[in-house]
């Protein structure tokens, strides 16, 4: 599978600087870069120099709401050209989003391509936050809140210009307490720290926070100490897609499936699109509880817990009758 790393962050937060630095690393040889820039004429791609085995493709003039179809087509085209040998045989894709982009449709596009069997999978989501303007931006720009909320790794930039204040740290922690935060100057960070972590990393599922509120985006954690039937999981995802799909920025989880409690299933979804579960060989820790992390708007943990309970009760009734 080809991991697709998403590099997002608000305008001027240092995405291109970070990307330019990363692409100089030999560890990012064989990378296809897609840059989405708002405006009819892009310049970011001129600021990014790719190595011989990597290349940059530019998408302009659109935002997340209209890019989805374009992005899916671009990814599909890249995969086809890779198979045909007309582009270098890249081993990863990095997408730098427009600073104004809502990340959810972009993640959805990636997931959709994965579901179609194109051989890609959503990798890490890296979000840059400007230490100078970050707090103001988060207060004013809803898209920046979403960009922070969905991140797997947060990069605090421009710390040479301003010492990150406690307010910004608290705001970031409230929006996304799961993701590690790295202070990075001029994009100077080891590529391993950002891109080579396993897709669907589980490290940020080890959290105990019940839920963390932003004004707009919530993070809800559902824990369950009993194994879950595979069919319960299927019906749960179906109902989530039905009722909160458009508002679900991201779902990830590790699930103890009753049919195979020795092999945890990792699930991953955006809006109403989900990857098939990834079955781990063993539990990564002694904690064998099911943990679901949902990030989005208008979510309600009691509803999810009642939904699981009702589905469970229905399946138990059917099993008893059978």
């Amino acid at each position, binding site marked *: 599978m080809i991991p697709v790393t998403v590099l997002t962050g608000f305008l001027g937060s240092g995405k291109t600087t970070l990307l330019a630095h990363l692409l100089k690393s030999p560890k990012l040889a064989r990378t296809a870069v897609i840059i989405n820039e708002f405006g009819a004429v892009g310049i970011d791609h001129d600021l990014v120099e790719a190595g011989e085995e990597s290349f940059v493709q530019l998408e302009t003039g659109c935002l997340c709401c209209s890019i989805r179809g374009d992005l899916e087509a671009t990814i599909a085209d890249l995969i086809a050209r890779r198979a045909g040998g007309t582009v270098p045989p890249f081993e990863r894709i990095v997408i730098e989003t427009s600073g104004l982009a809502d990340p959810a449709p972009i993640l959805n596009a990636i997931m959709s391509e994965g579901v179609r069997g194109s051989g890609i999978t959503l990798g890490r989501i890296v979000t840059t936050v400007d230490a100078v303007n970050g707090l103001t931006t988060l207060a004013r720009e809803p898209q920046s809140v979403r960009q922070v909320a969905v991140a797997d790794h947060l990069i605090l930039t421009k710390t040479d210009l301003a010492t990150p204040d406690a307010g910004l740290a608290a705001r970031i922690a409230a929006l996304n307490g799961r993701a590690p935060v790295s202070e990075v100057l001029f994009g100077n960070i080891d590529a391993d720290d950002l891109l080579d972590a396993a897709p669907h990393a589980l490290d940020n599922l080890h959290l105990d926070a019940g839920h963390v509120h932003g004004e707009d985006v919530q993070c809800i954690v559902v824990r369950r100490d009993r194994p879950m039937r595979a069919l319960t999981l299927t019906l749960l995802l*179906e*109902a989530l897609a039905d*009722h909160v799909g458009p508002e679900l920025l991201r779902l990830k989880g590790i699930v103890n499936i009753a*049919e*195979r409690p020795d092999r945890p299933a990792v699930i991953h979804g955006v809006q109403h699109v989900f990857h*098939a579960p990834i079955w781990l060989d063993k539990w990564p820790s002694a904690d064998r509880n099911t943990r679901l992390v949902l990030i989005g708007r208008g979510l309600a943990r009691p509803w999810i817990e009642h939904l699981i*309970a*009702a589905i469970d009760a229905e399946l138990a009734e059917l099993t008893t009758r059978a």
Partner: protein
Amino acid sequence: MMVALARLLASSLTLWKRHGSVRRDTRDAIVVEADGHVAHIVRAAPGIPFRWSITIDGRERVAGSVSGLLRMLRSSLDPDFRPSRVRIAPIEITPP
């Protein structure tokens, strides 16, 4: 089952931002009243391939599962509801 279902329906009204109530009418029936609509929910009669019978404003429908019931109920209560059908690669019920 009916207790769990009634709890789910009550929290669903909140999630859907519908004003109303959920009560158990008899041991095996649930009544949902919301925004001028009335829904009676009972188990479907034996011998038919559905789990639930839902009579909403006098019109009877059937659903095959709790999630189908939810979809049907919300479709009747919320004119803006557009279900987003899940898109998922085939789930392997057990690991390979």
